[in-house]
């Protein structure tokens, strides 16, 4: 924290990310103490990618001339309402020409799309939404969001950033469709029950060739992606589960046109960074960013490591793109990036926020 604040008194807020395996409550409390009057917001992570490594606690101070930050938190008893209330912080930075809303959420994956939609209903199409779902190493408990001195569970935190300089958001995934698109013909909360009118699990196994005993990281390699106007845009992880209902654990709505995805064979690492960061930086009209903030899916990293790729190369590329700007990258369990349309929830994607 002290490092982040650097003895400066013009910080408007501190973004705090702590690995889920540490005592996040203690971290939150300590950080808040160090921050003093400066609001603190963030979430737990499945690991800090940069700087510091998996075990590090990452603090990023936002502030200085031309930048305002406001933080709001709300419980996600109703995810939609949680998103709405988190977005209320935007009102505090309305005097800035460029605005962006960072959202940090935890809880069941089925809720996250609703949180984003709630925030969108307030923010509207003119304000990009970004952020991530609190991470934790796969199979280890659950994440928490951080707000002030508290580590909250079942909550959403909104960090509204208002800036005189442009703010950009980019998102990319390194997957490609495997076979023709399918229709989700039946779905429930967080579950795809049918694909093209057939039991989803059956179709999934058929398409992927995975057995019933497939390991978790094997299903991660075959997510589904919801189609947007330009094809499969929003990847959704398929988690291994018993499938007693013949369905898949995957957060997609009925009526969605989806594609079964697989990691692109080559160059997916730097390409993804280039695509995401490129899109984010594009908003800056060529100016160098003061900071790049990256939310990278822990599942994507698992898949990439399994494929023998090195995520470190991605970070290096991100550093290059940041120029002299700060880079903060964390590993999340869901990424938020709404730049067009109304859907802003992604899985197994990299979201980059460029602060101009």
């Amino acid at each position, binding site marked *: 924290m002290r490092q982040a604040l650097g003895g400066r008194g013009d910080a408007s807020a501190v973004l705090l990310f702590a690995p889920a395996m540490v005592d996040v409550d203690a971290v939150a409390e300590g950080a808040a103490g160090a921050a003093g009057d400066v609001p603190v917001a963030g979430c737990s992570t499945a690991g800090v990618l940069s700087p510091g490594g998996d075990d590090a606690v990452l603090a990023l101070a936002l502030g200085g001339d031309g930048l305002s930050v406001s933080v709001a938190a709300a419980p996600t008893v109703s995810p939609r309402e949680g998103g709405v209330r988190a977005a209320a912080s935007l009102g505090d930075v309305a005097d800035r020409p460029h605005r962006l809303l960072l959202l940090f959420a935890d809880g069941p994956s089925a809720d996250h799309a609703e949180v984003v939609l709630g925030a969108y209903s307030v923010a509207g*199409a003119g304000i990009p939404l970004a952020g991530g779902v609190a991470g934790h190493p796969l199979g280890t408990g659950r994440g928490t969001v951080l707000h002030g001195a508290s580590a909250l569970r079942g909550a959403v935190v909104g960090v509204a950033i208002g800036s005189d300089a442009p703010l950009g958001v980019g998102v990319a995934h390194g997957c490609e469709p495997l076979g023709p698109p399918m*229709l989700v013909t039946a779905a429930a909360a967080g579950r795809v029950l049918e694909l093209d009118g057939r039991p989803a699990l059956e179709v999934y196994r058929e398409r992927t060739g995975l057995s019933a005993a497939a390991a978790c990281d094997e299903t991660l390699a075959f997510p589904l992606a919801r189609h947007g106007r330009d094809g499969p845009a929003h990847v959704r992880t398929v988690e291994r589960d018993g499938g007693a209902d013949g369905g898949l654990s995957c957060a997609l*709505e009925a009526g969605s046109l989806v594609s079964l995805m697989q990691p692109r064979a080559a160059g997916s690492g730097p390409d993804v960074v280039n695509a995401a960061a490129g899109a984010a930086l594009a908003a800056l009209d060529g100016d160098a960013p003061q900071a790049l903030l990256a939310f990278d899916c822990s599942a994507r990293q698992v898949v990439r490591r399994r494929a023998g790729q090195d995520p470190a190369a991605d970070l290096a590329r991100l550093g290059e793109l940041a120029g002299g700007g700060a880079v903060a990258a964390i590993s999340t369990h869901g990424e938020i990036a709404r730049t067009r*349309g109304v859907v802003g929830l992604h899985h197994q994607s990299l979201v980059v926020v460029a602060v101009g």
Partner: protein
Amino acid sequence: MSAVADWAVQRLGVFLAAVAEPEDRDAAARVGVEHAAEALDAECVAVVCSGRVLASIGWPRFEVPERALARAVAEERPVVPVPGAGLTPAAIAGIGDEDCHLVVARVGAPLDRDELALLRGMARGLRLTLRLLQTVAAERGLRARSERQATENARLLTSLRRRQQVLEAMASIQRSISRREPLSSVLSAVVAAAGDLLSGEAAALLLLDPEEPGTLVVADARGFRDNARFLQRRQRVDEGVTGRAIAEDRLVVLEDYRRASGGLSDIAADGVTAVMAAPVHEDGEPVGALVVDSYRAGRIYTRDEQELLASFAQHVSLALTDARRVDAMLHQALHDALTGLPNRALFTDRLRHALTAARRRGTTCGVVVLDLDRFKTVNDSLGHAAGDELLIAVAQRLAGALRAADTAARLGGDEFAVLLEDLGGVEEAVLVAERAMEALRAPIPIRGREVLVTAAAGIAVSSAGASELLRQADVAMYRAKARGKGRHAVFEDDMQAEVLERLELESELQRAIDDGDIDVHYQPIVALDGHTLAGFEALARWSHPTRGPVPPPQFIPLAEENGAIVALGRHVLRAACRQAAAWLEALPAGEPLMTVNLSGRQLEDAGLVRDVADALADSRLPASSLVLEITETVLMQDTEATIDRLRELKELGVRLAVDDFGTGYSSLRYLRRFPIDILKMAKPFVDGLHVDDEGRALARTIVELATSLRLACIAEGIEAPAQADVLHDLGCGLGQGYHFARPMAADALTQLLGDDDERRFRLPSTPIL
């Protein structure tokens, strides 16, 4: 590509399912725009109806460009402002025949044909849904109205039920009052109903303590936290809400009891939060209050509730007044209206209870029956109002003479009774009787006159039944009466027979009178100068077929008591007149007098003058030959009626004599007032002539009185020649008695008068008087 081909259809199906879920139009429209935005991957979607945005997404909540959207629906190439993107071409689909449109703006890429088809499909689906929801909303509105109506109905029903409960409670209370159920249970019912119908509050009725004026006692209470203690409560009449309600004679409400002034500290300490009190009345006078106390915080009494309490209070007033009336009626039924003393019914009842108690305690009870000796005379001569006054005075004197435990009663007419409880013996009863009689002895002032009253007292002491004891006292009273005025007698067993005998005699006398079986005997009246016959006194004689001769002192009072004396007197008068006429014819020179006794009852009889006139006319006896004797006591009544009657008799020409002069009050006043001709000196004066000088002096006084008043004087009961001589010496002109002749039948006397040898009287040559 079947999935892509089916996508629009599938997506439409999902859309329709989603918009069908909400229950109102706005929510359906909101779900619609969100689904459309997701399905078409559009940034902004809106439902615009008649220039108003029903629902939208993509515009910040308070920055929806309503005018631009309204304009856009009418444009051929519509564009709408999209935040962060500026004016963006919009796809618009009409929603049915209403002025409603679904507007979609997607940045960067216009909708393709499939997407436009989906948009139209969504618009149609939304139309159906919105219409349906409008209908549902209308129905819901109706239902809501009907529910409101139902709620209102339920409220009315509750109100009616409550009203019904109130009416039932009131009716029940009214029934209780009209059935004259015990007052305490009526009051309890009112208190209970007041508590129940005023939301189950504590209720109490406080009434003035008749024993301790200025203090209220709790007649009934329920619902207080310590109800048993409250029931024992006593409070001053001028304190608290109750006191104010009574003092101001109006309903008083005190809310926020603990903080407001005018409450009682112990009531506040009990946790009471509000009090309401309504005064209750008895015969229009406030006598207490009906009170409800609430323990509920912030309790406010509504106007309805205040009226309800006032109504209950009125019912209490009704019950109290009615009960008092019933008490009064009972009192009236059991008491003599004139004197206020218990009547025969109550006396008998008390006697019965006293006897039961006496048996239990091993004591005895006594009854004294008092009968005024001359009440009828007073009543008839002074008028009924005076009679009433006399009875009241007697009652007061009687009550004053008794012990606290004794009960005096008026049994009827001039008959009084006294119940004596816990007697030690007969002597004690006699003492009470004597004290009562003594109390009556002093003259009683009635209308400016002093009336002397005596009473006969019958005393009975025994453990017999009430009726028997009363009857025994009655028998004793008759016995006492028979002994004379102002006497008393204690019941003895043989009196029973005596009374029966008397009753029998009375009925036989009546029969004898009716049958003309009463004889008239005559006793000569003689001039004391030398045994010259001056006249006769007619005397009734009753020769009973089995009993033999019944002495006049036995049957004359009987006839006077039962009124037979009037008929008897008429019979004697007519017989005497006939006989006098016969003797006058036989002895014309002396014009002998015929004296006939008139009882008081006869003098009161309106037909007396006519009877006398008829007797004279029928017998052709000169009125001057007839002397009517009236006792001193009758003259003492001194009523206008008596005077008028005597004057009428005098106008007939008859003469009047005062019988038994000297035994009464010998007032000179009546001698002057009445048209008296003759004084008849009573036998005791004649008896006393030879006893001492005083006796002679008394006789002389009477003779001189007669002389000075120019009245003739007849001495009665002369039994010895010396008496006749002395009387003659004193100046008394006439006399009668056994010394001269006993009374005898007319035939015998005629025979005596006609037998010259045996003649003991010299017939006068001229009238003596």
